[in-house]
């Protein structure tokens, strides 16, 4: 049986249970090439768990996750990253003691082995790439700043930059605008629209205004299951979604 698809990401029958509690329940989910897809849903819907499953942080109980027709469920985290999946965590996860430049350098996708890292040199190619990314994430003035001294929003950008430098085919962002000012949100929306050219992006977000600005497609997750999928308008008018968000 040929199960290959044209989707960047194809999740089928994905289930994970923690001591009997199904955080994700027989989930089917597809992501097209160059699509910017936002997953929303109330707390505990299983959004972050889905990202954890894709990037290998949590192992699934059942089901398959195919990324460019490669099965991810059996792969180790670093192999998934090397296959082209980048993931940003909910709270910015950067190296606070290192400078912005060093943060980006560590994320640069060469010299990933023991030997490679011992012989890695900061040459012009590396520096050019770092400058290019730094410019994209609006931190080109702050390359020598210790990352711990950046504002919360800048830290979020830095982490996005650390993923971008690896040029992933699939970028997953867990609440990228949490804790950002209004202006920073606008800049982030612009950034996301720019970086989604040429790659698929999967975003978890609560801020509806922000979602509306960026999303090609929206999926609502509830109790580990998909409640609705479609463009923003369809989803917003779906009676089941209204029930979940406003009901009880």
């Amino acid at each position, binding site marked *: 049986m040929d199960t290959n698809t044209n989707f960047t990401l194809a999740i089928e029958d994905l289930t994970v249970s923690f001591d009997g509690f199904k955080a994700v329940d027989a989930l089917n989910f597809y992501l097209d090439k160059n699509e910017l897809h936002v997953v929303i849903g109330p707390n505990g819907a299983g959004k972050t768990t889905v990202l954890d499953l894709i990037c290998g942080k949590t192992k699934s109980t059942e089901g398959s996750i195919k990324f460019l027709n490669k099965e991810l469920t059996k792969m180790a985290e670093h192999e998934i990253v090397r296959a082209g999946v980048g993931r940003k965590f909910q709270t910015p*996860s950067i190296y606070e003691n290192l400078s912005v430049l060093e943060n980006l350098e*560590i994320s640069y996708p060469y010299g990933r*082995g*023991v030997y490679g*890292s011992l012989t890695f040199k900061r040459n012009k190619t590396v520096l050019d790439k770092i400058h290019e990314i730094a410019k994209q994430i609006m931190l080109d003035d702050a390359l020598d700043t210790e990352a711990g001294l950046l504002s919360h929003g800048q830290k979020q950008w830095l982490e996005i930059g650390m993923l971008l430098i690896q040029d992933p085919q699939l970028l997953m962002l867990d609440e990228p605008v949490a804790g950002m000012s209004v202006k920073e949100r606008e800049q982030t929306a612009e950034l996301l629209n720019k970086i989604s050219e040429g790659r698929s992006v999967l975003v978890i977000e609560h801020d509806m205004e922000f979602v509306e600005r960026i999303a090609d497609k929206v999926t609502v997750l509830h109790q580990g299951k998909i409640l609705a999928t479609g463009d923003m308008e369809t989803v917003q008018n779906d009676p089941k979604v209204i029930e979940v968000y406003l009901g009880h």
Partner: protein
Amino acid sequence: MNFVYEKLMGGKQGLLGFVLLAALILVIMPMFFDIFRLNLIGKYLTYAFAAVSLVLLWGYGGILSLGQGVFFGLGGYGMAMFLKLEASSPENTKIQSTPGIPDFMDWNQITELPWFWVPFESFTLTIIAILTLPALFAYIIGKAMFTRRVGGVYFAIITQVIAVILTILIVGQQGFTGGINGITDLRTLNGWDITSDSAKYFFYFLNAGLLLTVIVISRFILTSKFGSLLLAMRDKEDRVRFSGYDVAHFKIFIFSFAAMISAIGGAMFTLQVGFMSPSFVGIVPSIEMVIFAAVGGRISLIGAVYGTLMINAGKTAFSESFPELWLFLMGGLFISVVMFFPNGLAGLWNDYAPRVFPFLKEKAKTKDVPPVVTDETGKGTV
């Protein structure tokens, strides 16, 4: 030239520290101390190998090994086995019921040299064994533990248990290991009397040279991307993993490398002191090596050497005159280093040296060695 300056010496401050240390152990100490004292200092410096290995492993990698004594001991025993076989030539042991085997084997009714002793009849194989076996052992332990993400406290406890197991084995298997007394009565190395003054001078300088070489190699590792990754893993292991690195590989490598360094120290110990015993393998020496590194400052290779020298000199001085006070002092040292001087001697040097030597100021922060941060995962501290 720039490569040597930045990568091997670690910039201006690193170079100054290295030159001062080299001058101290290569020139000043041999000038001022007689051979008896110098031999003693040489013995301390062999512990410094283990302390330096812990700087790499614990200070940078956040991996606390309470079993460095195991590797120190394996190196030491390797050398001791060679020397013992040389000392047990059939002529020297003709009064034994089985001549040609070590005396303790004869006492334990062993009539044939055990198979694992045989390779140690060759000096070349002995050197190879010292450089590879402890590292291989560490590789196996590391592979088993790090790929299963055993870290932090669990790793510390398991390495400690391994130290206990090895000690009991050595003590219990008298016939093969010499038991609690260890391997003693070592006399010659390829016919050269190792107790002679000239041999002692030679080993002292060889040891000092090796230690400085190990420091230079370690500097190279730490100033490379590997070093940044070690720090990054210590503080944010998940982020490193999700940047596409196989974290376990890096940990296995540094653990094996640390084991090799410690083993070299152990081998040099045997050569200079003339015996090896299980009391340099178990929990107590292993944890003392940690405190040498801690007093030096955990993240300072040079500091580790000074820490080792200071504590051992103190130990010798005190246990000669006030043996009771020494344990109190040592206990107090553990506590105060952890609580009040987590950056150790290197911290004091970094705070005060630029004031004394103004030319150090401009580049006081060459390599970002982060301050002591707290860490909730238990993966590492500093």
